[in-house]
């Protein structure tokens, strides 16, 4: 999957492109609108990661540029300014999703994957890994063909794990993924632990492999090398 990252902050851009590179994305970076427009005309990208505040203008310009040039890339807006107007305007102008800085890299990855699924894999709504299979339309999870009795949150969490395979997922990132931005409650991460415990129990009960492991001090990891 080829991604164009339009972000004027070089440190952040390098973090994002390094992370996405490890996930097998081909990630190119533009630091301003002019350069981005050149790249968008010359090459084809599956997705554009777009910062709103850029040195030579507003990132929303890129959205109209994409429309006039009839470029079919998906757009994920990354903005420091999480004002409601920007979000609404961005989505109305054709962006596919909106992520507010500071975000967790695994969250970015999950959103990118979701956009990619919606755009490219028309109709296919099953995400599978070995014996685990997740239907994102019906929110049903099966292990070895056996349906798991899962809550919505547990399904979301398992999906987050499967998408971010072999990544360390911090409790903070999981909490933000499940509960959103404005929850002041979850510095206490007991409940993340509880959810992870439940998922592992349910997968094991269906004779699935216990891929999810604890990373000491940091969080959890969906470890594909486990047998």
């Amino acid at each position: 999957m080829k991604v164009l990252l339009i972000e004027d902050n070089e440190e952040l851009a390098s973090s994002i492109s390094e992370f996405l590179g490890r996930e097998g994305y081909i990630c190119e970076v533009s630091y301003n609108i002019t350069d981005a427009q050149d790249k968008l005309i010359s090459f084809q990208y599956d997705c554009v990661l777009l910062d709103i505040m850029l040195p030579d203008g507003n990132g929303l310009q890129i959205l109209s540029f994409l429309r006039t040039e009839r470029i079919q890339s998906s757009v994920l807006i990354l903005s420091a300014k999480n004002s409601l107007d920007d979000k609404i305007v961005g989505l109305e102008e054709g962006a596919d999703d909106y992520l507010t800085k500071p975000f967790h890299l695994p969250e970015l990855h999950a959103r990118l994957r979701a956009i990619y699924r919606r755009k490219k894999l028309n109709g296919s709504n099953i995400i599978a890994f070995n014996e685990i299979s997740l239907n994102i339309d019906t929110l049903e999870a099966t292990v070895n063909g056996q349906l798991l009795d899962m809550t919505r949150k547990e399904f979301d969490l398992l999906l987050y794990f499967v998408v971010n395979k072999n990544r360390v997922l911090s409790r903070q990132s999981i909490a933000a993924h499940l509960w959103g931005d404005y929850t002041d409650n979850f510095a206490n991460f007991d409940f993340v632990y509880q959810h992870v415990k439940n998922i592992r129990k349910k997968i094991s009960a269906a004779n699935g492999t216990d891929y999810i492991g604890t990373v000491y001090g940091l969080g959890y990891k969906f470890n594909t090398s486990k047998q």
Partner: protein
Amino acid sequence: MKLVDKFTLWFLGITMIIIPINSVITYYSIKREIDRSAVERLKHVNVRVAEQIGKGQPPGEYTAGCRVLFAKTDTAFAADHYVITERDVTQDPLLNDNDRKIIVTSYHNIHDQYYRITSGDYVSRSEQILAGLRISIMWKLIILIALVVLTARVASRVVLTPFYGTIKKLQHFNLKAKKRLVLPETRTKEFKDLNLFVKKMTDKAVDDYSSLKEFSENASHELQTPLAIIRSKLELLSESDIQGDQAILIADMNNAVEKLTRINRSLILLSRLENNEYEATEEVPFDQYTKDALAAFCELIALKELTVKSNIEEPVCLRLHASLADILLNNLLSNAIRHNMPGGTIEVILNREFLMVKNTGKAPDGPIDDMFQRFKKGSQCNNSIGIGLSIVKQICDMNSFEIQYHYTSGLHILIVNFPPETDSSKLLQNDERYLHERIQL
């Protein structure tokens, strides 16, 4: 006491002092004037009598309506020597009236013979003058007081119009609206000074406020990118080969970044609330939101072994932005969960008048009034940032909800009172009218 009443009283007080003084002065000056003219006239009579004597015609007893006596005398006086005597003639049996008599005696040298000529006349007595004065003063006073009382209010309304205009503007002045004050024009110097001063002060306040706000907003936004960098670098770092104690360090940093992020987001939310970015455009089904919020927290509630009782009336529709309804409920419920004890209870009651959240928990150790302030939190809870309730308060203030908190018999009780069914704009109108009435005279 109103300004106009004070002025009226002051004016009446002065009048009360001045009128007696004035009447004494008038009394004496009229009396002096009457006496002077009588004396003048009698002197004239004496001179005429003297002339007559000089011509050899003896004058009658009455000349020019005055009784005249003359006699030869040896005493020599200067020609213009007059002796003036006055006496009351109450006891005069002939007159039998309260009159006063003025007698002028003069000496004349006629053909080397000195004559003493005495003439007298009756003038008004002082009491009579006084009686006349008294009536006129009474009338003067009555008319004065009546006119002052009747016209003072009208006059003050006219004169003080610019003042009331300024006060009204000030009462409606809202720093958060960031609008400069436009004051009514006036030609009165004092009001000009006042307006100038008020304008200078409010303009400065508006400028300071907006620059402060701009600063804090910019600061919050500028912090987002560095936070994103720190967080992403930490995430990349935790992917690398990490030893046990390094992992603990990273985890601590993660926690700190998380907290910083949350504080920053909350501050941005607060400033956006103050900017009225979340204007309620339609009614939301608040009962449904409450149920959803309870459902979202059910896992956490189960984890903390809490019992939930809910009594949610349907339908409850509120004029509130959908995001704010979520944030309000999330903050209230997460507070009720956080400040609870294992095995405790939470009770949620919702109806058209209020939303009540009751939960068991330790008594608050700080003053209750501080609860809604930013970063004031009970000491028993370290893992909150202490901004949730202040967001709740802000949301309530923006939507004219009223929030109350008490702690009774081991229960924290938070009540959000919704405005009554009447349209909120109508309510505002009434308020304005009330205000208007109050600042009128």
